[in-house]
């Protein structure tokens, strides 16, 4: 029985959904959320659970060994979801990505090794495989990162492999598609476009909008993690995928439709960034074989998700006023 869970990055978007899920899935367990509380984290993301005595928020940097070791010493399950995750930011300054995603992961692993943590889930990304123009990658595909962010996540996985080989540590790796839902920081397409449209502002798409992404609900992702805690094979990687694949243009149209707008009037196009992968795609038969299913679809959820951003627009008001956010300044 899981008694004490340590979740890194738990005050961010994905982490907060994982935190909520595990809080309810393991009602006897203590939950320690480690988060640096940088720009994308928010205590409000933990509103439904933070006031419970089973939950503790530890604010600090996963690169600080003494800090993380103190909490991991008590844990029988560590879910490592902390990461610098916004690809665009990694083009501007990639060093924090390497520090947090590679060195930070190394620190977590070292603490887990010394404290003999019985179960470790490492959250990676589909982007470690690189661009996939046709078909999809299964877990045996080679890593071929194409930007500083995905390179840092691939680097973290290499360190994991070393620890797996040397120490036989009980690690399971997950690589998921784009995750969507409420509470996502508005640097990502769905919250950003929802908030811009809510404010009556036009959308800007880099390139021609034909880039494709698969979208997985945060709740489906959290359910997959629980399944892997209970049934995942140690040392294995698992893709967590979605059948919902859309171009950026289709996502923009879907969001415009929520506001009754014609995308022709609301979408403008600007020159693409130098490296913008056209498509990522996963085969996820391996986790399906364990019993996981995608239970939610973006088309069914988009209305509720957009409504949430409309209802909580004041939370992002500070960013909505910034020229960087609006794309007016680099």
């Amino acid at each position: 029985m899981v008694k004490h869970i340590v979740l890194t990055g738990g005050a961010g978007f994905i982490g907060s959904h994982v935190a909520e899920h595990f809080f309810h899935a393991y009602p006897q367990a203590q939950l320690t959320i480690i988060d640096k509380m940088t720009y994308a984290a928010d205590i409000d993301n933990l509103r439904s659970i933070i006031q419970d005595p089973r939950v503790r928020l530890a604010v600090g940097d996963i690169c600080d060994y003494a800090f993380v070791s103190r909490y991991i010493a008590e844990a029988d399950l560590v879910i490592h979801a902390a990461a610098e995750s916004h690809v665009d930011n990694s083009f501007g300054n990639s060093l924090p990505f390497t520090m947090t995603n590679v060195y930070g992961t190394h620190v977590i692993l070292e603490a887990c090794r010394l404290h003999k943590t019985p179960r470790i889930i490492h959250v990676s990304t589909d982007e470690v495989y690189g661009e996939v123009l046709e078909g999809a990658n299964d877990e045996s595909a080679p890593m071929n990162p194409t930007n500083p962010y995905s390179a840092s996540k691939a680097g973290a996985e290499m360190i994991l492999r070393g620890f797996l080989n040397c120490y036989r540590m009980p690690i399971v790796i997950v690589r998921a598609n784009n995750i969507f839902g409420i509470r996502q920081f508005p640097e990502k397409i769905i919250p950003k476009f929802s908030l811009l449209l809510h404010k009556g502002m036009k959308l800007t798409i880099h390139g021609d909008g034909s880039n494709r992404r698969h979208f997985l609900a945060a709740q489906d992702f959290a359910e997959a993690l629980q399944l892997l805690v209970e049934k995942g094979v140690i040392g294995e990687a698992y893709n967590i995928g979605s059948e919902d694949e859309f171009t950026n243009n289709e996502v923009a149209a879907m969001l415009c439709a929520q506001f009754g707008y014609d995308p022709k009037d609301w979408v403008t196009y600007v020159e693409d960034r130098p490296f913008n992968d056209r498509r990522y795609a996963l085969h996820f038969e391996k986790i399906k074989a364990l019993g996981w299913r995608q239970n939610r679809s973006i088309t069914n959820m988009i209305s509720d998700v957009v409504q949430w951003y409309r209802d909580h627009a004041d939370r992002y008001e500070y960013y909505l006023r910034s020229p960087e956010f609006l794309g007016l300044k680099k």
Partner: protein
Amino acid sequence: MPEVLVVGESGFLSQAMLKAWGSRAQGLSWREALHPSQLAGAQWVLNGALDPRQMSELLSPEEDFDLQLAQKAVEAGAHYVMLSTRKVYDRAAQWGAREDDLAVGQDVYGQNKAQTEARIREVVPEDRLLIARVANVVGPERVPGRRSFMAMMLGSLADRGEISFNMSPFVRRDFITDRFFADSMKGLVESGASGLVNVGSGQPLMTGELAMALLEGFGQGSFRVTDPRVFDEFWLDVSRLKSWTGLEADPESVRELCREEGRKLASG
């Protein structure tokens, strides 16, 4: 004689005002201020002194230092500025309290301040009296004995590496920085304002946000809620402050102050 006298010079709010005014202001202790010659020549007298008895018992006019000081200021021909509190507003009016809302005092401190406001109005001419009802001011409050929200967070973080809340972190209150407070008071005095004015941000922040910013600046520490009660949420309507001074608080400045206080605490 400087044009502005700030009484209760060692206090947190007084220190902020003295810094904002620089050489144009002089600080005095409350004992010094009661000496007849001390106020002579001053154009403005601001009282930043706090009588700790105000927190626990209702004071009579004879015990009311603000009243005594206001009388001295009138005798000296100076304008008088009383620092009052948002706690003069009834609990029911705390969400968006306006200056013309009923001032009955929501606790002993608020009742004392409400009584003092009324007493002072009797002795100071209307055009020479400014009463500022102040929101929660945060600043460098790591001072022994200080029991404010910020001081307690700083103390527990320094002593135990932890911030523990006996209220919900989602309780929203109107916070301003000590600098914004001082700039507001300076702006009000320079505009020759008289009457009642709320001094706040008008934009409530979650108390948990301040704790998170403090922890972020400090570098590490844990946060726990021992009692998730929701109480004493408030924000002040600050339209009058904006119209009289043109000043408007930026909530981000409160978060940044907390980060900075956290960094200062970490560096010893």
